[in-house]
């Protein structure tokens, strides 16, 4: 299903001219209203009038996370505060958060984008949406909320946390769709089973939109089986708008359509900054072309993916980005080998019965990097025989070695000893002091 037939299926040529017009307007706007951008343009002698085609996008300077932090809190706003109707902020695990603003029109745009996202997942008027993304400064909760209201679904604004109460509501209200992080979905399933409730049978869920953290194809299958639903990957980031930057379609479940009439995606080589062609893997970069309060110019997301320009079966003409496989900044370099937590997850979940409750502990002992994988033992993989559990540990070690060429150790731990997230799961603990 398509929410905005006209724009989501716009022929590529018409889309390109629309993008150029909107890009030029955005560049004019930031040059005139945001001293940070004016200074950066002036430093390289760039004038807004130099942008005459979409190819000129690469003339524009990159914006990085520290630029956003340096201008905390409102330094990059492109409208006076009196025109800002809402602010959100990133979680900011280190230091100050990144603050973004929205005009009334930005909020309208965001609602439209989330309406597209939910519609792409097959959610429609008549559905009850259990929205377990956190409400507040985090963009997830309110983003999904406005989209669900826009399409006329009934929203249960449950937010994150208070899991037992969520289970009761899932059972009693009978929502048909759920929105939350993938790790929280599995946590919900765990708690439900503890309460004697079968998530596949006792809930009426049909579909879920999961995002805000990297997850693997195997985890999708696990969620789909656990809840007996379709699990759709959605993507967004606070700096760009929040959720609603790209989304999978129910028809293909193969790559996330970037809403290109609002954001221009690029893939660059993270080391050189050079743009890469479609199909090549690199760092994802976004330029917003309709936002008023907080436009971003070539914002480096640190997410690694590739773009696919092939026409999709769903009819959308937008390019698809592959599911995020890692980030340039959560990439672990273990004895010189690049390892992404998502790849480790993928390897672990190939083992029958294993659940995605794991943690990766990285340390450095005698100048050598070490990885310990802690994996919770559930009843499916538990055995009364020591040797069977040791075989399991050895299999994990061997699979990781075969996949990455790095040695690790595996430690089986008791269930529920790895901290469960109400939001994003912490998969990696890096104890190295470098």
């Amino acid at each position, binding site marked *: 299903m398509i929410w905005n037939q006209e724009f989501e299926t716009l022929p590529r040529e018409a889309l390109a001219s629309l993008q150029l017009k909107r890009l030029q307007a955005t560049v004019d706007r930031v040059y005139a209203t945001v001293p940070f951008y004016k200074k950066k343009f002036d430093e390289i002698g760039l004038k807004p009038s130099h942008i005459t085609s979409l190819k000129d996008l690469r003339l524009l300077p990159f914006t990085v996370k520290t630029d956003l932090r340096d201008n905390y809190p409102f330094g990059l706003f492109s409208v006076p505060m009196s025109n800002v109707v809402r602010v959100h902020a990133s979680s900011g695990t280190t230091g100050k958060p990144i603050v973004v603003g929205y005009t009334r029109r930005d909020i309208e745009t965001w609602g439209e984008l989330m309406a597209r996202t939910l519609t792409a997942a097959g959610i429609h008027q008549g559905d009850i949406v259990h929205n377990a993304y956190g409400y507040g400064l985090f963009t997830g909760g309110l983003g999904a909320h406005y989209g669900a209201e826009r399409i006329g679904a009934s929203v249960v604004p449950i937010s994150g946390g208070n899991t037992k109460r969520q289970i009761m509501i899932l059972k009693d209200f009978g929502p048909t769709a759920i929105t939350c992080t993938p790790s929280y979905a599995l946590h919900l399933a765990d708690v439900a089973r503890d309460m004697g409730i079968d998530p596949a049978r006792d809930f009426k869920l049909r579909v879920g939109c999961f995002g805000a953290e990297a997850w693997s194809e195997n985890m999708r299958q696990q969620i789909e089986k656990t809840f007996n639903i379709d699990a759709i990957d959605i993507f967004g980031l606070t700096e760009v708008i929040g959720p609603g930057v790209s989304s999978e379609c129910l028809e293909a479940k193969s790559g996330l359509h970037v809403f290109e009439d609002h954001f221009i995606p690029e893939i660059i080589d993270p080391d050189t900054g050079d743009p890469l062609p479609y199909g090549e893997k690199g760092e994802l970069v976004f330029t917003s072309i309709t936002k008023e309060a907080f436009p971003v110019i070539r914002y480096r997301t640190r997410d690694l993916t590739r773009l696919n320009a092939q026409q999709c079966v769903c009819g959308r003409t937008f390019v698809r980005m592959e599911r995020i496989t890692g980030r340039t900044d959560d990439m672990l370099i273990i004895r010189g080998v690049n390892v992404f937590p998502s790849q480790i997850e993928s390897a672990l979940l190939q083992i029958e019965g294993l659940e995605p409750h794991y943690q990766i502990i990285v340390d450095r002992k005698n100048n050598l990097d070490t990885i310990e994988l802690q994996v919770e*033992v*559930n*009843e499916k993989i*538990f*055995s*009364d*025989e*020591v040797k069977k*559990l*040791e075989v399991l540990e050895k299999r994990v070690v061997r699979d990781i070695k075969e996949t990455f060429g790095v040695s690790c150790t595996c*430690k*089986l*731990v*008791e*269930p*529920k*000893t790895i901290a469960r997230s109400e939001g994003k799961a912490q998969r990696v603990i890096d104890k190295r002091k470098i």
Partner: protein
Amino acid sequence: MKAEQISVFLENKSGRLAEVMRALGAAQVNIRALSIADTSDFGILRIIVNDKDKALAVLRDNNFTVSKTEVIAVEVPDTPGGLSKILDLLDAQKVNVEYMYAFIERHSENAVIIFRFDENDKAIEVLQNAGITILSSQEIYTR
């Protein structure tokens, strides 16, 4: 006839065994026999109890990973060579012991040995043919 054992996964850290015992004690579950297998980072506690369903429920409630395992409880005379005779019988039929543990009966001169074999059914046949007494869970508890 098979007896049922409860197996519990334990991380190798202080206080875990005590917690299992506290939970079982509070639920009035009595342990008749137990053994622990240990490695450097985990252990498996194996117990024979008076009320296995209650034990399973209370351990699950306390977030332990548990399983029910079928084992064979054999009654042997508490005299020199008692165990040897049984092992010889099984060895002759190529039945392998995965693990075993033993205790002395309260009301007789016999010992009870709990076995887990690679082929439990074959072991039962071999033992029964030789006239060895095999006990049920209930019998283990009342002897």
